[in-house]
């Protein structure tokens, strides 16, 4: 049904809310990527089968509930604690269950839904054995605050009705009633800064685009998330796609644009499909297209699919890609807000930025600015991955320290190993060490420490991580993802990567570290686009905080983390080995021998130095020793 006026939208919401209020329970099964991989789809099916068998009528996802329905089952977007899926949340109790199996569906239906009970033995448990009766008590969630991810994990992603029932498009209505100038002012006053990494003031960007004289203006949503380990934007596009459309429509209203594009990487097929359905649903409902809500505002959105080039996340390369040209950035002497897509003023914001906009318009600039730090207001979504106990998707107020994020929310380093470093900002960011753990996470603090906010990947590393190897990994990523247009980035990053490789292999010469640093600084200075200028960051930040490790690789040819194969030999400590036998089958080279309950031994001739035995050993009996190459 087409919504031809603002009143019609309000009536529709009223009816939906009333119908939802009649339901006794809402069961939210996480259908994010990790949970689906862990069997969330089968779990959801099993719950529906069990409910049917027990005579319980379900309304599934955004379906209009039948008169006799008492429970809504929602297959939501990512709920965050990816490591412990499939996740189930039952409302109104706010009970939260991890790792629920399809065969447990019967108990879920009978106890939680028919008897209104919280299934105590399924609740998350603290290291001290305390069970958390509600999700709000779980430390992983307790320290979080959701703005951009508010609907992700709550709404039925493909249902316009469910989005409207959750207050969706109320902000657009608000925006339609405001003069465009006030929308810009509100976003500027809120202090919203670009969540894609650059941290440029969103309000100012909109203002410049709005004031540029042009016949056409464009709004682009950058969903070309490419940082290793980052999936925030993917989660929002899959879990709450209507919010992105609403944010874009508000931006379009503010700057006077009639056409928007969502640039999504081709590797996110589910996001592409969801956004496609979202756009179709919005057009049908009169929330996109000509005369939106009868308010004399025209705006439509198209999807542009990226081919997977990392560089196409760079704004000017992205615009060229939409235009059908080769995705290469142009020099930033001309600002794309003034001359962007097809030479017209263009506002390009990240998915998460657009996801923050409806909340700002609805609740006001002061509300948003009250959260966070003076220079960086609001919240930021992060993907907490790597060697951390609780991996997943989180959103915290700006200014939360790295220590709070990693230890309070993330539960500390995996297996209780010592913390070594955390990588933020993806390939343009850097590694920070123990000394920076109390750094507040905001745009300026991270940049000052030599890393950057980036789009929000946060990779935790333990003492078995080699910083030379990490720097090499990022540089080799950047080498193959450089667009190849300018010499410093194309040739310089490749040479820097080569220098780091010689350090890993023990063939680096004295002076190579200084040579690498000089080259890195020159790449940062001379490259054409921001991708090239920031490409040396993973290396430069690692040298800043872990210089001794680089020097040990070059001068002593040792890798203290035991990662660089050419510098390391593995041996089993006879005192510590209990003969448990875990290591032998884990060895891909068949290099470990030993009788059950007897001390095992590694055949140095066969050992490839992969370290798989060390990873599986529970007794810390596998030791990484220097290979004792002749010293430089």
């Amino acid at each position, binding site marked *: 049904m087409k919504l031809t006026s603002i009143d019609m939208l309000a009536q529709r919401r009223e009816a939906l809310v009333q119908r939802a209020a009649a339901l006794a329970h809402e069961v939210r099964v996480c259908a994010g990527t990790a949970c689906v991989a862990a069997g969330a789809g089968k779990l959801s099916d099993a719950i529906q089968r069990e409910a049917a068998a027990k005579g319980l009528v379900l309304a599934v996802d955004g379906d209009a509930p039948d008169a006799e329905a008492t429970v809504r089952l929602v297959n939501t977007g990512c709920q965050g604690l990816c490591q412990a899926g499939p996740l189930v949340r039952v409302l109104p109790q706010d009970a939260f269950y991890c790792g629920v199996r399809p065969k447990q569906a019967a108990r879920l239906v009978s106890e939680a839904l028919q008897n209104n009970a919280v299934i105590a033995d399924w609740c998350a448990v603290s290291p001290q054995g305390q069970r958390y009766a509600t999700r709000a008590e779980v430390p992983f969630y307790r320290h979080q605050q959701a703005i951009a991810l508010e609907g992700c994990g709550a709404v039925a992603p493909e249902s316009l009705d469910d989005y409207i029932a959750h207050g969706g498009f109320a902000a657009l209505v608000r925006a339609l009633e405001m003069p465009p100038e006030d929308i810009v002012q509100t976003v500027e006053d809120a202090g919203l800064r670009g969540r894609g990494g650059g941290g440029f003031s969103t309000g100012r960007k909109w203002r410049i685009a709005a004031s540029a004289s042009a016949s056409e203006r464009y709004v682009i949503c950058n969903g070309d998330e490419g940082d290793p380990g980052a999936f925030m934007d993917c989660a929002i596009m899959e879990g709450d796609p209507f919010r992105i459309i609403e944010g874009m429509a508000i931006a379009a209203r503010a700057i006077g644009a009639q056409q928007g594009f969502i640039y999504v990487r081709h590797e996110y097929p589910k996001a592409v499909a969801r956004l496609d359905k979202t756009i179709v649903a919005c057009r049908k409902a009169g929330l996109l297209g000509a005369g939106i809500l009868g308010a004399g505002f025209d705006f439509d959105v198209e999807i542009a699919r990226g081919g997977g080039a990392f560089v196409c996340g760079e704004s000017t390369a992205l615009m060229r890609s939409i235009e059908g040209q*080769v995705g290469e950035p142009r020099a930033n002497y001309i600002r794309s807000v003034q001359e962007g897509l097809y030479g017209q003023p263009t506002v390009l914001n990240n998915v998460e930025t657009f996801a923050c906009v409806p909340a700002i318009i609805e609740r006001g600039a002061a509300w948003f600015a009250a959260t966070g730090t003076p220079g960086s207001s609001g919240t930021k979504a992060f993907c907490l991955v790597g060697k951390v106990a609780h991996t997943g998707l989180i959103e915290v107020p700006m200014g939360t320290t790295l220590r709070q994020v990693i230890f309070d929310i993330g539960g500390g380093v995996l297996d209780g190993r010592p913390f070594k470093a955390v990588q933020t900002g993806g390939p343009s960011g850097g590694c920070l060490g123990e000394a920076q753990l109390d750094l507040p996470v905001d745009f300026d603090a991270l940049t000052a420490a030599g890393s950057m906010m980036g789009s929000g990947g946060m990779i935790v590393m333990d003492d078995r991580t080699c910083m030379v190897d990490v720097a090499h990994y990022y540089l080799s990523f950047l080498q193959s993802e450089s667009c*190849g247009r300018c010499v*410093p980035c194309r*040739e310089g990053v490749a*040479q820097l990567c080569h220098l780091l490789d010689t350090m890993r292999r023990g063939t680096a010469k004295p002076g190579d570290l200084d040579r690498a640093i000089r080259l890195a600084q020159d790449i940062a200075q*001379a490259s054409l686009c921001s991708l090239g200028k920031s490409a040396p960051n993973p290396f430069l930040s690692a040298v800043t905080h872990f210089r001794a490790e680089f020097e040990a690789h070059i001068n002593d040819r040792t890798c203290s983390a035991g990662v660089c194969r050419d510098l390391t030999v593995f041996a089993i400590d006879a005192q510590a080995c209990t003969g448990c036998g875990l290591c032998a089958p884990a060895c891909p080279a068949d290099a470990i021998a030993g009788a059950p309950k007897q001390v095992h031994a590694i055949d140095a001739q066969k050992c490839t130095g992969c370290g798989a035995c060390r990873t599986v050993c529970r007794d810390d009996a596998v030791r990484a020793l220097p290979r004792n190459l002749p010293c430089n």
Partner: protein
Amino acid sequence: MQLVIDGIPCTAQSGETILQVARRNHIDIPTLCHHDALEGVGACRLCVVAVRAHAEAVDAQVVASCMYAVKDGLQVDTATPEVRRLRQTVLDLLAARCPDAPEIQALRERMGGDAVDYAPATDGSKCIMCYRCVRACEAIGCNAIAAVNRGPQKEVAPPFFDATQRCIGCGTCAAICPTGHIAVTETPQYREIWSQRFAMAQCAGCGAPFMTEATREHLAGLGKLKPDYFTHCAACRQRDAAARFVRVGT
């Protein structure tokens, strides 16, 4: 508008680049990818200069002079120690990329800076990815070649590395290449370029091969040139024109 390059006051028009203004005032800035006839691309970064917004400004920014549009009051330094070092690095990197390109090695020696030897490439390629050929082909209206792949694998090629009807064998790409990377074989009957063979058209005057048949067709299609352009070589056209002048004079 007024700007200062290396202490020399220069007058410029809006839209001009630093490089254009500098060259007009006889201030040398080295370039590789730049060509006066082509739009700037900012690829080689050899033409970097340091700019400050005005005379009192302290913060200098390094920009590519071939792309950076002049602004009133701009202070440009073309040879600060930093700028010289960045140029040296660019040439060091290109020298490692193309050890077999004497033009690059010579330019590097001329810089006379503190050179660093990076790991040299072994593929024998002389291409420095300056995009001159690509831009020239585009300007001619053929778009037969483009930069393909990413990162160090970036190279210039026709679509799918295959023969293409878009190529007219005009040879401009090879002529404009600063390192002689693009191979051309010339015989009286044909020209071979990009692994494609093109039949040559013979001059109606002297019989010499003067352009490929495909080039003749392409140029004729533009409808902008006199008919004798497609039948006679440049030398014969000059001779005929001279003869006409002589007749008018007598």
